[in-house]
């Protein structure tokens, strides 16, 4: 394992310390229990998210005006514990309450569930949404269901804009649920990722292999397939995403061409070019787009594509000012 780290147990704490010091104007660090929260919290619905570390800039990179109020980082690829969410809720939830944004993983769901129970017991008003946007996973009530991946950043942006507008908790939750219903994603990996505590990659790929349908935890995907060109990779992802969304000609979308952490921008933009071409072929307008390493899996090289069906309301919320470490415009 070759990583720029010190001792393995210190990875998350040290990274959070560096992050908080770099962005002192935006965030405040609470060391124990560990969470990061907005430096100044206005009187509005507080969006609280969290999850395993290793997906940076998700979630802490999205704390700030127009997005999250707080983020609770777990160990690498391990959901945080309820104490963290409870303490963060106590800090940022005002009279308007808090919305938990949870990626659909058994661990995340259970830990946020416990936190919500504890928060309710303290009289804090909390609602929860769970995002599962990965079409690589079959959706069924018999399984853990679809996992939350790249679409999470689109969700946090739109729900954050709704909270910043002053909507009440039900209103913000409805915006969030609208995003969850209308966003789909799929990803692939060119290389694996190594959890620091594990020391070796979860999977290793040959020079001519791709892992298709990966999540964001360095876990293997649905299938191992032969290496493809960038254009073919995009086709392999965008097809299932657009089909599952049942995208129709004439519709507008917000599209995220996302790198898995170790993907150079040069390659992401090559992929993005094809994303836009294929959408155009389908008669779909990419009304807004975002390209970069936003929802990552440590140093993994790979790509995910997220598509959100967007009407005027969604576009307005997308365009609303945002000022966070990783996403900024309009202010």
């Amino acid at each position, binding site marked *: 394992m070759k990583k720029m780290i010190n001792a393995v147990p210190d990875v998350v704490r040290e990274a959070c310390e560096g992050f908080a010091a770099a962005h002192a104007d935006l965030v405040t660090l609470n060391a124990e229990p560990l969470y990061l929260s907005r430096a100044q919290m206005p009187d509005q619905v507080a969006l609280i998210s969290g999850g395993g570390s290793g997906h940076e800039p998700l979630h802490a990179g999205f704390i700030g005006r127009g997005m999250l109020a707080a983020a609770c980082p777990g160990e690498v690829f391990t959901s945080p*514990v309820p104490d963290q969410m409870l303490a963060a809720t106590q800090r940022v939830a005002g009279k308007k309450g808090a919305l938990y944004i949870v990626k659909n993983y058994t661990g995340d769901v259970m830990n946020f569930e416990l936190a919500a129970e504890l928060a309710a017991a303290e009289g804090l008003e909390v609602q929860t949404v769970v995002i599962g946007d990965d079409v690589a996973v079959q959706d069924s009530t018999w*399984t853990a269901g679809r996992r939350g991946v790249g679409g999470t950043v689109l969700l946090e942006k739109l729900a954050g804009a709704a909270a910043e507008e002053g909507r009440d908790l039900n209103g913000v939750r409805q915006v969030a649920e609208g995003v969850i219903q209308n966003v789909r994603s799929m990803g692939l990996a060119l290389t694996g990722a190594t959890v620091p505590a594990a020391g070796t990659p979860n999977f290793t790929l040959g020079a001519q292999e791709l892992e298709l349908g990966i999540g964001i935890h360095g876990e293997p995907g649905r299938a191992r397939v032969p290496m493809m060109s960038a254009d073919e990779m995009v086709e392999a992802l965008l097809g299932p995403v657009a089909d599952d969304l049942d995208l129709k000609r004439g519709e507008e979308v917000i599209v995220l061409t996302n790198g898995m952490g170790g993907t150079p921008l040069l390659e992401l933009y090559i992929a993005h070019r094809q994303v836009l071409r294929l959408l155009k072929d389908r008669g779909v307008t990419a009304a807004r787009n975002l390209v970069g390493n936003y929802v990552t899996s440590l140093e993994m090289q790979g790509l995910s594509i997220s598509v959100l069906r967007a009407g005027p309301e969604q576009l307005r919320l997308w365009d609303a000012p945002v000022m966070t470490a990783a996403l900024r415009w309009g202010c």
Partner: protein
Amino acid sequence: MPVTADDLRHFLRVFQEKIQAQAPYLTELDAAIGDADHGSGIERGVNAVVAALPAQGDPSAVLKSAAMSFIGKVGGASGPLYGTAFLRASAALAGKPELGREDLRDALEAGYRGLIERGKAEAGDKTMLDAWRPALDALERGETLRQAAQAAAAGAEATTTLIARKGRASYLGERSLGHIDPGAASSALLWQSLAEALSGPLGEDT
């Protein structure tokens, strides 16, 4: 000879030792069909459990303390699951200064029901339940704790033949076949620790 709070403390220390020894193996199992954190997570948990063990207190208090450590330090799926199991076991023993065989079985049954409530899985879904269920069945058949632990180990081993329907491994679909479920493996260690620590007090080692 009944099981005391001290015996349960001993059980938790044995569990810690076994987890410490097997953490890399558990992580390896999790790397194959999950996200490579089960070993480190559960090790963080048992270390916290032992560090926080109350010197005083009855069996219920010991298990409750362990539950809070699991919930507060592990994260992921296994933290709330083990935490809930210990919490329910603790509740089942409330007020009892010592435990007989029946008490212990009731507590473990309550823990198992907690796992199911929290995780909404069932036996056969390729989870830790697949170690617990055969172990509890053995106890119900009147077998010893050691036999139950063997059943847990066999159950964990047999998860290789299951397709995961719950937890992270479910994303792999059929590709989850041929691998041991990491949570079932750590649960087998839990049952093994119970057997090693409590067979004596229960009078099953004679």
